């Protein structure tokens, strides 16, 4: 999709994931494609239930199957389709080359093991070193995320939420991954801690030169740390481009709506402008453009057939036939 002289690290092509429940098919991810270069940060933005987490878990192949099923598509990581490789080989990638930070730090740590052991576990799994060395390395990593190494032997319940998220970040970074999937890492934290954690992540990303997929519904976070942004709606990427493309040259009506529902400091109106209507039922997606029922620009042609991506400027793709008219 993007012709760049930089090296492509991850390339997702035509990914389609469904969940089956009681015979119903939930279309969670529909034909998602994107590329990510080394050291780059991609923001996946969208409402709750848009399929962002499913995309991340598909990349790591940790979706529960059943009910989830990857219907088609490829995920190329360092040139290899990791949806096809055997599980044993995938395990070598998980936590090592690709790792993930989860949404809720309160529940993402095993409550009955000390945090140090949980971090050392990743190191021991992927690196051929002794326990003692792993312990020492764990303490260094803890220090790196701002936790004193002496807290190695403490249990998760002895840490605050922000500290737990730091532990999880430490765990994810323990083996210097080349790709980090961050699934709403700040959603469960309060605002001041959010800022700290984001700053830490941006700093470490720079230091370790990894690529990152930042899943969020917070456009402020995106503006802070992402290079590229993909806007996800009902399991589909509706607009993708550089941060500047998305923020300054918005082309898709849904993205426009997202910004419209954001409060701003210099706003004169008393009320926010939410997008009318609800996300479509993923069991029963509308014909044609998924956003058409809520779209102020929708015309009959929108509802006839699936909308293709069009490149409005180099690297800026939009899934809308009236993109040029959108303001």
């Amino acid at each position, binding site marked *: 999709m993007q012709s760049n002289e930089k090296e492509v690290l991850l390339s997702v092509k035509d990914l389609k994931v469904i969940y089956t429940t009681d015979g119903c098919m939930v279309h969670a991810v529909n034909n998602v494609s994107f590329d990510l270069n080394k050291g780059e940060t991609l923001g996946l933005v969208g409402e709750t239930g848009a399929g962002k987490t499913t995309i991340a878990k598909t990349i790591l192949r940790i979706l529960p199957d059943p009910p989830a099923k990857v219907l088609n598509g490829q995920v190329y990581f360092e040139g290899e389709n990791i949806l096809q490789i055997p599980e044993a080989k995938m395990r070598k990638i998980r936590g090592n080359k690709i790792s993930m930070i989860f949404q809720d730090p309160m529940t*993402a740590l*095993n*409550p*009955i093991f000390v945090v*140090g052991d949980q971090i*050392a576990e*990743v190191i021991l*799994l992927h690196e051929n070193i002794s326990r003692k060395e792993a312990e020492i390395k764990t303490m260094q990593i803890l220090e790196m995320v701002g936790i004193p190494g002496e807290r190695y032997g403490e249990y998760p319940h002895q840490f605050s939420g922000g500290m737990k998220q730091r532990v*999880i970040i430490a765990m994810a970074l323990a083996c210097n991954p080349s790709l980090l999937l961050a699934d709403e890492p700040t959603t469960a934290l309060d605002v001041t801690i959010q800022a700290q954690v984001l700053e830490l992540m941006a700093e470490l990303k720079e230091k370790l030169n990894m690529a990152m997929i930042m899943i969020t519904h917070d456009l402020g976070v995106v503006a802070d740390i992402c290079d590229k942004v993909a806007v996800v709606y009902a399991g589909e990427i509706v607009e993708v481009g550089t941060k500047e493309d998305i923020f300054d040259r918005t082309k898709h009506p849904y993205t426009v709506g997202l910004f419209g529902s954001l409060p701003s400091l210099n706003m004169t109106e008393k009320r926010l402008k939410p997008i009318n209507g609800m996300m479509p039922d993923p069991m029963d997606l509308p014909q044609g453009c998924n956003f058409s029922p809520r779209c102020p620009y929708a015309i009959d042609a929108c509802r006839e057939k699936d909308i293709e991506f069009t490149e409005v400027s180099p690297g800026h793709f939009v899934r809308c036939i009236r993109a040029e008219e959108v303001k």
Partner: protein
Amino acid sequence: MRKYIIKRLLWMIPVILGVTFLVFSILYFTPGDPAAIKLGADATPEKIQELREEWGLNDSFVVRFGKYCYNAFLKFDLGKSYFNNRSISQEIASRYPNTLIVAFLSVFLALLIGMPFGIMSAVNQYTWKDNVSMLFALLGVSMPSFWVGLMLSLLFALKLGWLPATGFAGPSYWVLPCVSIALAGAGNIARQTRSSMLEVIRQDYITTARAKGQTEGKVIYYHALKNALIPVITTAGSLLGIQLGGAVIAEAVFAVPGIGTYMVSAIKSRDYIAVQGSVLVIAITFSLLMLAVDILYAYIDPRIKSKYQSKKKEKHKVNVVGKEA
């Protein structure tokens, strides 16, 4: 932790005194004069009076209760049977080990059978493996253990002649009673393990463990199982409690000379003082067992442990998990 255990042990004193008081009062107010029963219908009132005096039955309630407690708790003497004049403490001491053997072995066996089935069910939820093992669990729970016991002795003792049907003279005698109790227990434990495993394997930290690249076996047996153990331990603990106190039916079926059969025969012959002694011993065992279960909780779950601990910071042992663990 030690402080907590001592506290719990001290708490046992009022519990045991309360149990003693209750059992003593119930039997005190139960109609029927042990002396008259002992001497038979043709005894003269003088003789009965004499025996009542000898057994201290003419003392007031408070005096009798006080004497009983003094003898039981300070001299470990539960009195003499009204029926055959033997020391109850000695009778219980010679029988209780048999009950203990049956109880512990059968619960151990139940865990050994039940837990793997429960884990397998949970990991393969809604597949044929799950359905088959849950069907067996349901069968196990639904079959009364005395009936299973009878069927087992019919097959293995009578038909095949592999194992002795009654008595308690050695390990081969333990098999049938233990297995018949364990089958029901295994069903219970399998169902409990399944439901608590199902809850745990949906937790985020299990996904975290998978995302680390950990093998599925380790995820299940290391990360999930320990978290799922607490309800299983509760079930096993109460199973053990039931077996210690009331394995009456199983003991009766296989003629195991345990505390259950002793209590039943004591009740039949209105040997109230023997009943009283047995109940007391069972109550004490039960409280100790529950204490052991609570300590086991703390050992498994550090969150529970931290509630018991004083504010003093304890230095945790650094212990790395992973490859060889």
